[in-house]
Structure formats: C-alpha cells, structure tokens
C-alpha cells in the first residue's frame, strides 16, 4: 500500500467514525462557549451603557438588553454623557441578539439529536441536561456500566463531594419543582438509568415505560 492509500484509508475511517452523538457533544461545547462569551460581552456592554444611561444600565439584566430596541433607546431620558454613540451601542445589541439566537439554535439541535439517540430518556429529563450527562460519562458506550450513585453524582461541583446528590440531575426542572429534592434526585436517577439502558439496548420509544417511570417520580412531594 502506498502512503496515499494509508492517508485515504485514515480519512475514510475518520469520516465514517463521526456519529450523531459526536455532533451533539460538539454543539454542546459551542453552546457552553456561547453562554460564556455572552456573559462576558454583556458585562462589557453594561459598562458601556453606564456612560450614557446610568439609571437604566445599573439594574438592567441580560434580557433587558436583548429586548432593547433602538427606538426605545432614544426615548430613555437619563443623565450621563449627552452626545450618545447610539449607532455603536445598537450594533453591540444586535450582536448580543445574534448570540442569543445561536444559543436557541444550539438548544434546538441538541434536543433534536437527543430525542433521536435517547428517545425514552429525553422524555424523562430535559435533553440539554441529558446531553451534559452523556458527555460527562464519556458517551453512550459507557451506559452498561453506569450505576445510580454514579449517575446522580455526575456534574457535582468538587466542593460538594460527600453529598453526591448535587449533580446535573439535581438541577433539572422536575427535581427543582419538588420539596424533597434529594429524594427526587435519587428517584429520577433511578428512572433515568432504566430508560438509558432501554435506549442503549432497544433504541425504540416505549410510551408505557415513560409513563411508569414518570409516575414513580410524581409520587414524591
């Protein structure tokens, strides 16, 4: 075999090795990077806005800036620098809006891919959290070796070691809506593990199973 054949073989193997799961994790990385950059950008814009509209900017949140329009900006009567550089400020706001739109696009893609890959599990927990869990454990091939205790500890900040309930699952909407969050975390990770294993081995959506598993969690106050 020539060197060119080796290169072509490696290239072919590379392109065939990329799965939908890989794509999902990369989109998740981009989503995280967008969140980070959005927060940094928001802080800088806020400081810039403070020069022109101090009363508005000091208490403004990220959503206030995203929903802000140029017409509204002109109406705001505030003390601060009088000759306002509104064109520049508006272009910054547009960029912030673009980041927000891209974030939504990322979430949509992640949800789409997650429901394809894990049809039962994505019905039990938010797809974004599920994607984070799957990325943390190292891909779906690690599912057969997964345990409940390990699952509920995933995403646990280091300073919470010893209290394994404060992971990604703890931050899900279902758990946060319950009073006994620790118990709910345990129950949800129990149900999630069952659904993950069904997804891994069967790969088909089972409505009855989803109903049963969701019933388990809803019993908790």
């Amino acid at each position, binding site marked *: 075999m020539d060197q060119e054949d*080796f290169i072509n073989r*490696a290239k072919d193997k*590379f392109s065939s090795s990329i799965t939908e799961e890989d794509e999902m994790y990369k989109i998740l990385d981009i989503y995280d990077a967008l969140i980070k950059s959005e927060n940094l950008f928001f802080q800088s814009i806020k400081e810039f806005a403070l020069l022109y509209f101090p009363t508005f900017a000091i208490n403004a949140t990220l959503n206030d800036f995203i929903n802000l329009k140029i017409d509204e900006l002109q109406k705001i009567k505030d003390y601060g620098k009088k000759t306002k550089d509104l064109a520049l400020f508006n272009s910054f706001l547009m960029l912030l809006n673009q980041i927000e739109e891209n974030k939504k696009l990322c979430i949509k893609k992640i949800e789409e891919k997650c429901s394809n890959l894990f049809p039962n599990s994505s019905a039990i927990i938010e797809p974004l959290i599920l994607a984070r869990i799957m990325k943390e454990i190292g891909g779906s091939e690690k599912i057969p070796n997964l345990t409940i205790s390990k699952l509920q500890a995933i995403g646990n900040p280091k300073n919470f070691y010893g209290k394994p309930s404060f992971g990604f699952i703890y931050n899900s909407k279902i758990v946060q809506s319950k009073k006994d969050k620790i118990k709910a975390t345990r129950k949800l990770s129990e149900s999630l593990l069952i659904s993950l294993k069904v997804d891994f081995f069967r790969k088909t959506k089972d409505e009855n199973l989803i109903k049963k598993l969701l019933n388990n969690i809803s019993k908790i106050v």
Partner: protein
Amino acid sequence: MNNLIRIGKLLYTKNLVPGVSVYGENLRVINGIEYREWNPKASKLAACIIEGFDLKLEANSTVLYLGASSGSSISHLSDILVNGKIYGVEISKEMIVRLINLAEKRKNIYPIFDDARNIDNYKDLVNDSVFLYQDIPQFDQVDIFLKNLSIIKEKKGLLVVKTKSIAVNKKLKEVLELVRKQLKSVKIIKEKVLYPYYPDHVGFLVSG
C-alpha cells in the same frame, strides 16, 4: 543516527521540508543546512535519545510508532528516516486530522487511525517494521507493547512507561518491578528513568 546532531542540551534534526516549522519549533541553519530544534522537554523520544538509548535506526528503517498524537515527535523521526517509513497509529479524532495533515507534507509518514490494542486491523499493513516505539500512557500499555512487538520483524522496540498510569498509589520501584515482570518474555537491553525531563516516565529498550 543520520541527520541528527546534539548541541548542548538540545537535539537538532535536518529539516526534510526546508523552511517549514511543524509545531512552532525553532529552525537553525548550521553549515548551510537547516535544522529543526528537538527539545527533550517536549518529546519523550528526544529525552530517551539524550539519556543514551541507542535505537540503531538507519535512514531506510521502518518504524511502527504507537501513540503518534499530532505528530510532533514523528516529524523529527521523519527527518531522520529520510528513505524509511513511519507508521503512526493514533486513536484520537482531533489528533489524526493533524497527523494526516502532516503526512500530506512528509512522504515517509503513514497514518493509521486505529486503536493500538486491535492489532488485527493493521498488522498486515505494517509487517515490514523493524522497530517499535510506544508512548501510550495507559494502565495496560505493557500489554499493548508486547502485542505489537509480536508483529515487528526484529522484535526490537522502545517502551516509554508512565508509572502513574500503571499504579498511582505505588512507588516508582514497585511499578518498575511490575513492568519488569510483564516484560519477562523479552530481553531488556537498557532501562532508565527519564529524569530530569520526565521524572514519572521510564524508558525500556527491549529486544525479543
């Protein structure tokens, strides 16, 4: 080894592609010939050569390199083995892209995108290799090395063991004992800790 010189604490290899720096290393012209700086702090293979491991490689030798990564060390090997071949086995997707990129510029690098544990996938392609170099910091790296050594013609190879990957809670001496036991089937020609460059790494030059 041809095309390799040592000046002070650094190694230099004659640049196969003049004017091109592969990973940002310094280029130096000595007696009208361009050389690429090979820092032993950035490459375990360079550290092994500086520590006195005699690999006895000719310009036309064929080497099987496990754990090729982005190809920084492999590029220096390709400077040395001008008429030879270097089969670089790599499993990581990000790294194989870089290795393919490098192979397109250097005609003696043959990239293989595979797991070094699955020798059946590539053993027929690399059966003309005469030397094995392995630098995969995994707990079963000695097994991987021995598996791959079985397909090398002259059963000669250099194994760089990362002691912390094999056992974190054991002392260096204990890990070395373990590795020596595993390498029972082959003859250890030279064994040395790569101090001060890589205090946790030990080089084993073996022959079958």
